[in-house]
């Protein structure tokens, strides 16, 4: 489904190829790094949507589905079977009867129902609510109008029936750790947050806040022969330069690379072979507020796209650690249209469009940005002179990332630069631009187009996946033509992996999120 193979670096492929050729070794320690901050947010994974936290959660917890990087789609994990009925809205899941929590208790349907009800507790604003909301009656629980999700029924201890509000693939909604299944009895206790219990291949041993989480093999994990390793250590390492030293010193097995390190590793004969890269399902863009008069005109929005030399920024500033965006849906989306070409760098055309729109001398706007090195201030600073050439003046308004999130959701901006998840589900990614989607959800540009709505609505009704795909591709093309954003790039995630660590998965949803049970270390690993 996903075409990750198209974007894997040659040596990354070689690394994956080696996995096939060797017999996995049992034992050893996997030493991963969590690069996105100074600490883990919480040991209650339901409360945090940070990519940082899901790194350890992939070892500790399990959800109804799991992301399969090889297939490029979510597949059943805690259920063996999903029988669809009721016009595609009712899913009957046959749960595994061999999944044990780390306290030795067997998982049942009650745990699934309890976990989803917990996530919909509206007074806690659990981030996973956005996914569970797809179950009928979940929104009522969130609003405090009901106690239990009406669309979720226990048939027997290992069977649940889930009625959805729309015809979607539930896999896309229930594969992240945000919807992890907790043990109903244990997770209600205060002690759970100190010593979490999950269904994953590794059980919790220790958390040193701001430093590391240690997990050890769970012998009753349901997949035979898994996990391979005895222990997993996830070290918090927010500083790229420190990770670089530790990686070269063989103290860690994985390290996420930034643009500068990406260049350095590529030019180092010893390190080049450690690079693994994948196009993640994130699109970076400048969003334009259509209630700001100049941006209400499509020609102005298109002019912005023509005025910016996007390739130059990607090559020189981002050091090639990104893929040029040629539409909203990213390279690894199953519906990515490779026939679409990005807007060319054409300042003359931009000027012409501006003149046609009534702005021959350009205009001035305020551009809200965070300091992010890949989609923040450095990019804005590079773009400003390009816009200036066609007469558009941009004033920078710098805010913190937390504030930017509020700004885009409230619509309190003229333009902003952001990185947004545009997958893995193309339907959900495009639905963000549906006029019925509130700005506070993900329609950040408050985009409204009846033709677009019609295409997305129709795609939601059809049963034939091919037909649905065609409709969504049309919607994607229409979006590109309407240009509510400057289409900047799709993130290229790059990670260095030590040669002794095998089984790395090219996860397009987030490269650091590895199904740890499939990783193994050979005898050359310095960590015994």
């Amino acid at each position, binding site marked *: 489904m996903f075409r990750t193979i198209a974007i894997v670096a040659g040596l990354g492929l070689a690394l994956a190829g080696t996995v096939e050729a060797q017999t996995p070794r049992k034992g050893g320690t996997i030493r991963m790094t969590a690069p996105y901050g100074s600490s883990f947010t919480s040991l209650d994974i339901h409360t945090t949507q940070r990519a940082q936290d899901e790194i350890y959660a992939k070892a500790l917890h399990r959800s109804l589905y799991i992301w399969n990087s090889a297939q490029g789609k979510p597949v059943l994990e805690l259920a063996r079977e999903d029988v669809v009925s009721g016009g595609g809205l009712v899913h009957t899941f046959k749960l595994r009867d061999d999944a044990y929590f780390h306290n030795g208790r067997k998982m049942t349907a009650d745990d699934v129902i309890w976990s989803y009800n917990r996530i919909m507790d509206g007074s806690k604003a659990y981030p996973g609510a956005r996914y569970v909301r797809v179950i009928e009656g979940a929104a009522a629980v969130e609003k405090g109008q009901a106690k239990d999700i009406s669309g979720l029924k226990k048939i027997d201890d290992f069977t649940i029936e889930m009625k959805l509000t729309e015809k979607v693939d539930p896999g896309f909604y229930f594969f992240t750790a945000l919807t992890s299944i907790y043990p109903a009895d244990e997770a209600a206790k205060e002690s759970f947050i100190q010593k979490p219990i999950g269904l994953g291949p590794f059980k919790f041993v220790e958390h040193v806040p701001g430093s590391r989480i240690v997990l050890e093999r769970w012998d009753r994990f349901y997949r035979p022969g898994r996990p391979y390793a005895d222990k997993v250590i996830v070290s918090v390492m*927010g500083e790229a330069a420190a990770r670089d030293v530790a990686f070269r010193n063989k103290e860690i097995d994985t390290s996420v690379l930034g643009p500068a390190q990406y260049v350095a590793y590529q030019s180092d004969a010893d390190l080049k072979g450690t690079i693994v890269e994948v196009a993640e399902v994130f699109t970076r863009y400048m969003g334009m507020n259509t209630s700001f008069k100049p941006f209400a005109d499509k020609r102005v929005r298109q002019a912005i796209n023509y005025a910016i030399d996007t390739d130059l920024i990607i090559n020189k500033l981002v050091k090639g650690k990104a893929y040029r965006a040629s539409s909203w849906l990213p390279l690894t989306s199953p519906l990515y249209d490779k026939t679409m070409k990005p807007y060319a760098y054409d300042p003359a055309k931009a000027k012409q469009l501006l003149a046609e729109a009534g702005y021959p001398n350009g205009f001035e706007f305020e551009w809200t940005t965070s300091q992010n090195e890949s989609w923040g201030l450095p990019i804005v600073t590079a773009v400003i002179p390009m816009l200036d050439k066609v007469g558009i003046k941009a004033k920078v308004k710098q805010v913190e990332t937390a504030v930017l999130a509020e700004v885009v959701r409230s619509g309190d901006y003229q333009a902003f630069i952001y990185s947004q998840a545009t997958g893995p589900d193309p339907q959900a990614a495009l639905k963000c631009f549906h006029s019925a989607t509130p700005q506070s959800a993900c329609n950040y540009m408050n985009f409204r187009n009846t033709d677009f709505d019609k295409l997305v609505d129709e795609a939601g009704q059809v049963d034939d996946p091919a037909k649905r795909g065609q409709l969504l591709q049309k919607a994607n093309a229409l979006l590109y033509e309407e240009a509510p954003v400057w289409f900047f790039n799709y993130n290229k995630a790059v990670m260095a992996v030590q040669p002794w660590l095998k089984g790395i998965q090219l996860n397009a949803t987030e490269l650091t999120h590895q199904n740890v049970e499939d990783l193994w270390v050979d005898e050359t690993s310095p960590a015994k």
Partner: protein
Amino acid sequence: MLSFLIRRLLQTIPTVLAVVLLVFVLFSVVPGSIVSTMSDDSDPQVELRMKKQLGLDQPVYMRFGAYVARLATGDLGASFRTREPVTTMIAKRAWPTLQLIFASMAFAVLLGVPLGFVAALRPGSLVDTVSMVLAVSGLSLAKFWLGLLLMYLFALRLGWLPSFGYGDGSLKYLILPAVTLGVSPMALLARTTRAAVLEIMTADFVRTARSKGMSETRVVKWHVMRNALVLILTTMGLQFGALMGQAVVVEKLFSWPGIGSLLVDSVLQRDIPAVQGSILVVVLFFLAINLLIDVLYGVIDPRIRYA
């Protein structure tokens, strides 16, 4: 001594209150809230409910009143993010931070003070020049860069020490972060000590001691050192406070599990109780150290006690 202590303790109360008020007001007016950091896509009604539950729908003065009332009972509140008591969160990280700060200060004192003394006893000599060049360099070095340099040298090149982490809390994990953090106060102490000793060496009472036939060793030991200690202690006290702030950079660089990283992440996530608690602990530590220094002044120079 007891009345002196009580007086000094009472003097700290307005400082603590001012800090509490300042931090509270600051985080009440800065944009961004915990609700927006938790989910990209939450229902506005849910946001309102959550704000209500966290008490964020109340006017600032009411929230401040409730906060101070809780604080009076030693309750720092619960983290918005993890629902854990802030005291528990800080307790988990306090020991590593204290380890780091005391080790850094020990490094600074053990190296900086003798260096300053040696330089002052031979002013203008090669030893003086070299030690002062080192001191100025130490003050000028950015901690982040120095830390990386030490990692590169002692971990990657020489393989003597681990480059990061807390490990089992043993000394080998502590050395690099402590030295990185300790270089700047070491340099300052060396310069302060040199200046203090040079000044005291020319004082009348030192000249008198020498004229009475006292040996140079005894002059330095009994008159110069004791008097220089007051200035050295003052510098140490101030540096302890500065180290608490500077530890943020070092803790992050070395993945050291201290209060600094808790503070940084809490600020970014707008976890106000955790921010307030962390800053309060830093301030209380600073005040406690300075109180201790004041007591030590009295021990070194009894005149100060009665002043």
